[in-house]
């Protein structure tokens, strides 16, 4: 009924959420560890200051961001729709530690309720959408620039730039994590060239919307509770670590994309298994060889020994796959019947 709603899936959410399906366990696990460490650290700090009103305020603001993210608005001249991301907004309103927790909680709820991304990808998402805006964009871009009073140009630029940088970093994180996981055919370069410009636009929209929200609040309430100011010094180590990880990851990805074999090699190393299971060794190879000699359906065109073994695997795969699905459905049916009788 509402035009903005008919614009289809909105760009922001589309590109920014990592998903389980794109991740390798190694990358997912490392990002989980990184995010868990950051969340634990911020939790400790919040717990220490424990200003009674802060936690519910964090919860309410998180709920606000969660709700506002679902309100799409049209972006003039593009025919597409945008929405609020909220990472920078939360950092400005709450300070980095509380902002990280608030964003992380939104992502947890989204992962649980909407299965947005998934559980394994949660680590990546908290890092990309929570940590990077709150602990990199906010202290290193927004704070140094936001010298003027609210409503003045320097501050407006700081908000814009903070939002853009935050989203650029987040997008970069997505690219690196995806490429390192090696689940898509996208090369680092291609993916990077696709993601960063889109997120420049998204970042600008984010900045403009954040700005207009802050302006409204400024007019409405003369005093907003000031976020605690100490966070950026104490968090410097974490920030450095996070940046380092990202840069290192980016470099590896860049290098790997120039040397595709290197990527395969890296992935095999990291995941401890060969990327293509159809090689002549191992289970499938052995099965394939058995099959090649005893096949009931012999009239396949084998192009070469390796390709051939894959072809055979594939046929078995298709048949076996179908049988598996039938079996799963059967098991489900039996369970269903038993449950009904119980």
């Amino acid at each position, binding site marked *: 009924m509402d035009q903005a709603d008919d614009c289809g899936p909105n760009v922001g959410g589309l590109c920014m959420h990592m998903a389980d399906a794109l991740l390798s366990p190694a990358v997912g696990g490392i990002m989980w560890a990184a995010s868990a460490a950051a969340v634990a650290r911020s939790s400790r700090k919040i717990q220490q200051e424990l200003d009674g009103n802060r936690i519910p305020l964090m919860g309410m603001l998180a709920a606000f961001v969660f709700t506002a993210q679902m309100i799409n608005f049209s972006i003039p001249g593009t025919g597409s729709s945008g929405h609020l991301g909220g990472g920078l907004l939360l950092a400005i309103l709450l300070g980095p530690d509380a902002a990280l927790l608030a964003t992380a909680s939104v992502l947890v709820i989204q992962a649980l309720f909407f299965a947005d991304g998934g559980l394994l990808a949660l680590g990546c998402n908290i890092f990309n959408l929570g940590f990077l805006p709150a602990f990199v964009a906010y202290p290193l871009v927004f704070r140094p620039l936001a010298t003027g009073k609210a409503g003045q140009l320097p501050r407006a630029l700081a908000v814009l730039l903070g939002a853009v940088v935050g989203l650029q970093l987040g997008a970069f994180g997505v690219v690196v994590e995806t490429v390192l996981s090696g689940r898509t055919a996208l090369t680092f370069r291609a993916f990077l060239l696709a993601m960063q410009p889109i997120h420049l636009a998204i970042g600008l929209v984010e900045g403009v919307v954040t700005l207009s929200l802050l302006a409204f609040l400024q*007019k409405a309430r003369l005093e907003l509770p000031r976020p605690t100011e100490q966070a950026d010094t104490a968090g410097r180590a974490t920030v450095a670590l996070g940046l380092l990880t990202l840069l290192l990851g980016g470099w590896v990805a860049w290098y790997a994309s120039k040397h595709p074999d290197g990527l395969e090699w890296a992935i095999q190393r990291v995941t401890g298994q060969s990327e293509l299971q159809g090689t002549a060794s191992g289970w499938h190879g052995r099965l394939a060889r058995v099959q090649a000699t005893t096949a009931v359906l012999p009239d396949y065109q084998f192009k070469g020994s390796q390709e051939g073994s894959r072809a055979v695997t594939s046929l078995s795969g298709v048949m076996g796959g179908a049988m598996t699905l039938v079996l799963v459905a059967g098991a489900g049916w039996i369970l269903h019947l038993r449950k009904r009788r119980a």
Partner: protein
Amino acid sequence: MSHHIVEAIELCHRYGDGTQALTEVTFRIHHGESVALVGANGAGKSTLLQHFNGVLLPTSGAVRIGEVPLVKETLRDIRRTVGMVFQDPDDQLFSPTIGQDVAFGPLNLGLPPADVEARVRAALDRMEALSLKDKPAYRLSAGEKRRAAIATVLSMTPDILVLDEPTSGLDPRARRQLIGLLRAFHHTKIIATHDLDMVLDLCPRTLVLHEGRVKADGATREIFADEALLAACHLEKPLTMQGCLMCGEKRGI
């Protein structure tokens, strides 16, 4: 001017969770009538009101506004005809200032700026709220918010005004003012309320809902005189009728 007729025909509504909120509701409200919708909590008043401009659509049955059936295709026109004032005025005020809020509807109708301005002034003036024009909504008292909310709807020059509990939360003087303002509004009015004294003041006709069905539909005075009916529908006589020494009535319970 058969325009301002509101009609429900065997209207049923069932919410997503299975709650049957309305069952075969049928009535016809004529041009210029002022009708009260009363009934217990959860009787279905708000649900019914939300059918008049397509916020909800019937599960079965039909709604007709001015002989036009309310369906997806007619929604836009009907929303221009029917002005809806929600129970919580905060829901209706979302622009930076009250003036902009009141202008929102006319602007979206594509009117030229001068007309919009005139409409804004007229609507605010009618609600005695011209002084609020440049104020932001979050600075207003409950009564002021209520009047502003009604003005946002009046500026669309609706033919039919639908109000959900307009007097709730108002202090006695603000309530009295609002009743006066509504009385001056001569279009068709439908008011859902628990304030039966306001009904007595404003609405010659009353519809009683009970558990999603129309339990009575008739002259307000007659309905309010029927104690058995009132009791069955969780209602009681208006307070002004209860303590009246002239009528010698005893107060309820």
